[in-house]
């Protein structure tokens, strides 16, 4: 048997053409307990159903090790192509390499892979999204407004990139008086905001790194009887509703369903012999109360 390591590159054989209905697609999603990724799934599933493609979807429950196992199992099942939405872009590398070894093309969604060969990355530009949020707040609240930031799960790439984009654009323009993590969780967003308001009753804005936490913040702000400009991120259904009714001022909307669709479309293109772009940008748009009610 072989000894050594399991990461050698396999030769890139020519793509054998396959029509969508002959294609077996393996999908590994980071989680299904978050509406955003449920929408990604919806996008993939919707297009697949239309084209009668067989998809098998696994859910890593936000556990990097489980995702590796899931992908191994998908490779064992001999899928033709893998659509991976990594829990973490560094920890996914070995799994991508495994897929490379098995000659299975990999398309990543929302987050990239740090190593291995990836056919294409479908994502919106989180850093840019953070910037959009900052710019909106500066425009709306003016320079040096006191604001707070609700952060996501520590270390998650979304936390890092959205935070980076926002913080860089807000530097010297906004006064970020509090930064607390609320783990992308609505209940935590609520209690964390309550506590922030307690210590900083003079803040006029809150940037939340996702809509879930922003919606928690909405409840806290309402309970405190304050007027605070809340900006979320993601554009999930509940978030959009809150923006429409004016409870949130804006959200940086991603289009997760579109992301899913684009990923699967890239797979179709690949097996249709077309070249697929290395990076497919899924559009972001700033949704504000004004833009919705126009």
């Amino acid at each position: 048997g072989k000894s050594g390591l399991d990461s050698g590159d396999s030769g890139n054989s020519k793509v054998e053409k396959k029509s969508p209905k002959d294609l077996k697609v393996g999908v590994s999603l980071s989680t299904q307990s978050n509406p955003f990724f449920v929408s990604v799934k919806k996008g993939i599933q919707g297009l697949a159903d239309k084209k009668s493609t067989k998809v098998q979807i696994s859910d890593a429950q936000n556990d990097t090790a489980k995702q590796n196992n899931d992908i191994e199992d998908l490779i064992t099942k001999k899928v033709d192509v893998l659509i991976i939405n990594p829990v973490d872009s560094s920890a996914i590398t070995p799994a991508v390499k495994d897929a490379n070894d098995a000659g299975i093309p990999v398309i990543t969604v929302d987050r990239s892979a740090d190593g291995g060969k990836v056919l294409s990355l479908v994502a919106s530009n989180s850093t840019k999204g953070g910037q959009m949020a900052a710019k909106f707040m500066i425009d709306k609240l003016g320079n040096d407004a006191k604001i707070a930031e609700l952060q996501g799960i520590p270390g998650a790439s979304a936390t890092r990139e959205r935070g980076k984009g926002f913080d860089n654009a807000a530097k010297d323009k906004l006064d970020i008086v509090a930064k607390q993590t609320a783990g992308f969780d609505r209940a935590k967003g609520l209690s964390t905001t309550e506590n922030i308001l307690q210590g900083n009753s003079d803040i006029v804005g809150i940037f939340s790194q996702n809509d879930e936490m922003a919606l928690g913040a909405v409840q806290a702000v309402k309970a405190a009887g304050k007027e605070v400009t809340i900006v979320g991120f993601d554009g999930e259904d509940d978030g959009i509703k809150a923006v429409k009714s004016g409870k949130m001022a804006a959200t940086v909307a991603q289009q997760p369903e579109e992301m899913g669709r684009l990923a699967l479309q890239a797979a179709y293109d690949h097996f249709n012999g077309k070249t697929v772009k290395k990076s497919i940008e899924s559009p972001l748009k700033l949704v504000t109360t004004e833009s919705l009610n126009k």
Partner: protein
Amino acid sequence: MQEQTKSVEAEKAKGFDFKKFVGKMGPLLALIVLVILVTVLSPGFIQPNNLLNLLRQVSINAVIAFGMTFVILTGGIDLSVGSILALTGAVTATLLSAGISPVIALLAGIALGSLLGFVNGLLIAYGKAAPFIATLATMTIFRGATYVFTNGNPITGAKMNDSFLFQFMGRGYLLGIPFPIFIMAIVYLVLYLLLHKTTFGRKTYALGGNENAAFIAGVKTKMVTIWIYTISGLMAAIAGIILTSRLSSAQPDAGTSYEMDAIAAVVLGGTSLAGGKGRIFGTLIGALIIGTLNNGMNLLGISSFYQQIVKGIVIIIAVLLDRKSNDK
């Protein structure tokens, strides 16, 4: 293991029993010290507004922990409370969104929580499964069921927000005091009486102290066990309703790891994990300690990384102090 009790008797003879007092009041003293500390560091803490805030935040954990107190007194444990909270929250929210009368929806949620707790009780009493593993399994099952039921999406029907009653549960005020605090107080009172003033309470202690002897004394140990897990499920359901109402939405992953906070509250309150020893008053104090820590550290702007470390250390100190005062 060694040298016990003798000293207790000796002290008693002397009139005032200082060690016993510390033993009983230890958690309360710890809370007082903590409150003073936080107040000094962050004067905003002691404002009535913040205190109400804190109590409201505590209410969810406290209600679960009150139920957990019974479970732990029997020497058991209930890891499934967080999942029960999520599932009952989701079902209640769905019923409300479907336009069902709020009273019925709330009752249905509470009934479901009790039923799930009842299932735990059955597995433990009749299936003779160890409580830890039985509720570990149902924790997974109920969580899975919540995901299946919600399809992973939060439930936020518009109709849910039409119901004044439902909104009131988590977000209402009565005489300027948030309603969840009232719920917590009522639950405390009822369970206090149940535990300390009824035969059911005595049986709970007996079961935890020595199951065999309880059986011989004619205690229907299986029935008591089933009831106790039912109560725990019921409490989780009440907490689920408060949370769902506060958030105006039912999250499929709500309540994840709430069991740990509830257990910590019970143990901080001086209840022994071996069963048979403890008081529900202690649990209230335990929940307040945890709440004060969370709230205080947020006020102080301590990074969440360090918050975890501090919380862990406080739990250890409290438990060690408690051991010491019980010891000698």
